[in-house]
């Protein structure tokens, strides 16, 4: 079972990101699950969301405490919380930031990738909403979900122009991830 924890702030679409990741896994024909940390919704407050994927049905309902991957949508959280907390040995942290990985210090010796997802989102979507971008990056770096799976999830969730733009953002993010890796 692969477990993923998402960090972001209220209003950044963190919960949607977790949902979309589970949907991507679903379209890859895996069992999966995603849920938020059930906070009271407040714009700007630190928010957690979780996703799991497996070859057999996901039964457990507890919050993800020992993630294989951590996705951080907002790098200002690094000053507030230890995003690598509980990370499994050999786990990976992916952070949306314009900084290089070498400029960031984590509390653990996790594998760290940084990608300027906000730039991609601003270029393509015209808004700094990075959730779909993060999924393209996650797919590109980890291969845990296919880019086709991610695109199907985006197609299911969005329609019209928003769908078109998000699909493009996902593709660009996927390619960018290849460079980072």
């Amino acid at each position, binding site marked *: 079972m692969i477990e993923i924890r998402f960090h972001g702030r209220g209003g950044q679409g963190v919960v949607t990101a977790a*949902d979309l990741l589970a949907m991507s896994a679903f379209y890859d024909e895996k069992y*999966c*699950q*995603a849920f938020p940390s059930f906070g*009271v919704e407040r714009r700007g407050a630190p928010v957690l969301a979780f996703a799991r994927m497996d070859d057999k049905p*996901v039964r457990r*309902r507890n919050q993800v405490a020992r993630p294989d991957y951590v996705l951080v949508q907002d790098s200002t959280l690094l000053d507030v919380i230890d995003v690598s907390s509980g990370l499994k040995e050999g786990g990976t942290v992916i952070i949306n930031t314009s900084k290089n990985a070498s400029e960031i210090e984590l509390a653990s010796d996790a594998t760290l990738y940084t990608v300027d997802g906000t730039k991609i989102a601003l270029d393509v979507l015209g808004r700094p909403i990075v959730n779909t971008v993060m999924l393209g990056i996650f797919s590109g770096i980890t291969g845990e979900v296919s880019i086709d799976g991610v695109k199907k999830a985006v197609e299911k969730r969005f329609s019209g122009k928003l769908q078109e733009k998000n699909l493009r953002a996902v593709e660009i993010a996927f390619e960018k991830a290849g460079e980072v890796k």
Partner: protein
Amino acid sequence: MASWDIMHGSRAVAEAVRLADVDVIAAYPITPQTHIVEDTAKMVADGDIRAEYVKVESEHSAMSVVIAASGTGARTFTATASQGLALMWEMLFVASGMRLPVVMVNANRALSAPISIWNDQQDSIASRDVGWIQLYVETNQEALDTTLMAYRIAEDAGVQLPVMVCMDGFVLTHTVEPVEVPDEEQVSKFLPKFKPQQYLDPKDPMALGPIAFPNVYTELRAMQQQAMDGAMSVIEKVNDEFSAVFNRSYGNGLVEEFKTEDAEVIIVTLGSVAGTIKDVIDERGDSKVGLLRIKSFRPLPEDEIRRALKGAKVVGVIEKDVSIGLGKGALASEVRDVMYGSGDSKILSFIAGLGGRDITLDSVRGVIDTCEKALSEDVETVHWVDLKTE
């Protein structure tokens, strides 16, 4: 054709309501049930459900509306949670006393004060004596399937009782996971149009809800209990028939046993935490610990519980409620009652997951450790799991 999709638990319930072809829906939104109200309202607006959707000003009114509609022979649906269920409370007795087959989904949530929007099961547990059938589900799939089965059970000629489908708020309602949405035609075979036993009809008048003097009140209450007793075999039958059509079932409909056969320790619980417990039991790799998930809390399947727990030396009941003043969980005290006079197993109460406290793998491991300790030494009967002491 049945189709696989990925969806929130709330959506799964809305799909069941659509497939059940209900006539009247009345509901008032409350976290964490809100999406059920939104999804079913949209389905009605889009013409996917051909039902009257009554917007009401409170849960008391929602229940009153479905009672009245059900009295005219309509198939009805409502949903609520926590404070909403509390506000409905007097009408819950009216629905069951009038023997109306109302189906309601309760998105289990803690009660105020202090204010909590998060999950536990205190709301429906505190309503255990209202005369409703209560079925607790573990997954989103089971929420959909049980909502469909609930209509068959409620509308059965020998039952005629309202059914509350209890699903953990947030933990299921706000979780996305794969769900197989059954085929419409198959559902209409499994759940044909509602043919009420008795209903308000101007051509054949009757009085619904009159006063009962002391000379008949006791008899009417006894009839409700008889209907509950009879519901037990109907729940099993409906579970079997559901399995025959859709190839899915949930234990025998009343309880689900997991590795109980040679278990010295059996954990008993309600609802979605069963999944977490199964994972912890599996990681042990022995056959010492099993799980009994009680799906039907009302009627309480006493024989099934006795049979399942017969071989256990220690029984640990994990539940998301506490009967303040009794000092233990309500289910634990009922399990003790059921086991009275049969064997000498120790029955321990574990109060966990109140007000949204995460029941972690370690929480469950801790419960099992305590139960194993109880095999050879005396331990406290009641444990507040993960209680902070300072």
